[in-house]
């Protein structure tokens, strides 16, 4: 983990698979990785909030990103994990659990390896991405966790309902590529 700071511009990401896609989050955001355990459901909460778990005496919310992105809810398997991450919610650092189908690896990316996300074609809206990381021939979607966690489910729903392409075409004129680079 300390390597990330000593390397000049290179940053480390933890990659994980979710609903058929591969995603990455900045490794400094990840506090620990837990094997999936039974989550206590909380009634009257959005579908994307899976429930709460006991993290050594602290009650921590678990978020299902697949449900948040408008995809079917994550099925629990032997490999399912909970990433305990720190995200900013309403200006305060909050510990949140994020479900993953499986944790892949730690990848190190330099500025040259991170491309701005294209305006369409990805499962997640471009606003919630830091960029696309190139790992060999694969692309890893680098998530902007703070924005993903604090965003409402509805903000993702539009993509799911109308199709990513249509939404992207709508969004394209107002969000040219230059902005995306800046955001990344």
């Amino acid at each position, binding site marked *: 983990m300390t390597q990330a700071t000593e390397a000049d511009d290179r940053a480390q990401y933890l990659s994980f698979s979710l609903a058929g896609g591969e995603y990455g989050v900045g490794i400094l955001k990840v506090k620990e990785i837990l094997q999936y355990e*039974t989550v*206590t*459901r*909380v*009634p*009257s*909460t959005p579908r994307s*909030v899976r*429930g*709460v*778990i*006991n993290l050594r*005496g*602290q*009650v*921590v*919310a678990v*978020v299902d990103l697949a449900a948040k992105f408008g995809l079917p809810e994550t099925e629990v398997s032997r490999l399912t994990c909970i990433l305990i991450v720190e995200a900013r*919610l*309403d200006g*305060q650092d*909050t510990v*949140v659990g994020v479900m993953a189908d499986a944790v892949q690896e730690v990848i190190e990316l330099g500025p040259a390896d991170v491309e701005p996300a294209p305006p369409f074609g990805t499962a997640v809206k471009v606003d919630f991405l830091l960029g696309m990381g190139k790992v060999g021939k694969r692309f890893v979607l680098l998530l902007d966790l703070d924005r993903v966690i604090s965003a409402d489910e509805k903000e993702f729903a539009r993509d799911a309902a109308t199709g990513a392409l249509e939404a992207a075409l709508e969004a394209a004129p107002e969000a040219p590529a230059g902005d995306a680079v800046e955001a990344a």
Partner: protein
Amino acid sequence: MDELGIDRELLVQTFLAEAEETFGRMEQALVALEARPGDEAILHALFRDAHTVKGGAALVGFDGVRELAHDLEDVLERLRGRSLGVTDALVTLLLRSVDVLRGSVAAAAAGAREEPAAALAFRRRLAAAAQAAGSAPGAGEPGASSSPAGGHAGPGDAYEPAGPAHASARTLRVDVTKLDRMLDLSGEIAIARGRLTDLLEQRAGAGAEQLLEAHREADRLYQDLQELITKARMVPIGPTFHPHARTVRDAAAALGKRARLVVEGEDVEVDTAVIEHIRDPLTHMVRNALDHGIEPPDVRRARGKAPIGTVVLRAFHEAGSMVIQVSDDGAGLDRARIAARAVAQGLAPDAARVTDEEAGRLVFEPGFSTADAVTELSGRGVGMDVVRRNVEALRGSVAIRSVPGAGTEITIRVPLTLAIIQGFKVGVAAETFILPLDAVVECLELPTEECAASAPCGILNVRGAPLPYLRLRDHFGLGGARPGRENVVVVRHGAHTAGVTVDALHGESSTVVKPLGRMFGGVPGISGSSILGNGRVALILDVGGLLRETLRRAATAEANAA
């Protein structure tokens, strides 16, 4: 940080906390001074406090505050030198100066460079008072600007106001010996844990009995530590009670009445969170006692009572709760007036049929007020309602007892700590929920004919009385198949009762309450969470929220049936 490496932020924070504590102490001392004008010790204590504020303000660079404190010192110096007598007017002025100081500190902390205009004007008044003192008895040095020899503490240190553990919203002062004991315990826990690890590693050698013993040893230490931490959160109630000496004085003065405050049980310890929540209700009740309870001196004389009324703030422990009583020796509740007002406000149908007990209940109704005119002190009809709500938020209760002509006594019962409650565990589908035990009235088996009904809620016949009930499974949309036999937990909230239908009853246990966290901004029907023995999280049900929903549904169901 500046060039000296001093963190000014930290200094300011410390100063702010200390200043607030000092101001509270000064108010107490001033009220005491009024009662015992010749008490040197009080004067010395006051002077020391003013000097402390001055020094602190100079250190953090709050010049306005420093100068104001300096002027205050001048007046106090004259009092000490007997060139000025203690009068009611002067005490009022000095109390006012504490208010102005408080305002200036707040303004300076908020970053104001200039002294507030009000503070400047006030300083002139203060200087005039000191001046007048200088010329009247003709004994003091000329002019008000003579600065007293700073830095010396008065001799005869008899007056030591209580208030070592002042609790503010964010910080808590803990006795260092308590912390040392915690450190010792955590050290012992580390050793016990190491021993347990050793035993587990060489499992072949260690018998099950040995392991269990090692575990019990560690367990005992954990419990000791938990108890110690809970205790560290407990602070004496005295510092919360004492400021009301001033509330009583000011309110009495404003109403043309005379009253004094008596504090009993100031050493009773209670959780800091409880203290924060009862502060406002206390103020409301003390003001009410003066406004509605204590009579003007001539009326009191005519009734054969002492002209000076007494308001008592009392705290004591009783069966796992803390009891706070606010009593006065005033007129008592005026049943006829309460009844008339209740009828006028549509809260009661017939004035003649309002009993004493009902009158006691009516004063807690939202919006109820008997005051004919809205005064600064009371009469807006929000006071007692706020008291009840704040106390209920603490899972406490309020009761009122009144004897016409002899006085009123309000009794508040609050749990000692908010961190642990007695819970009643119930199971629905795969989930476990916890109901606060004090809300549970009884448990029943759901009659078979009701089991067959598939509606999410309904009405039960309990010993001839109708009882609306809801199925927790349907209420929360938990899914899963219903078991053959269901149970009903009858819960109460205020005057209402209702049934909550669950699959299984798991019995009662002590429950450590944990907040649900920021991801959940107030889930209806859920008040918090707790961790079960198996490490899973269970949700604590908010009976009030659930019942509001039940009553609403019951009403809809009745409307549909009609």
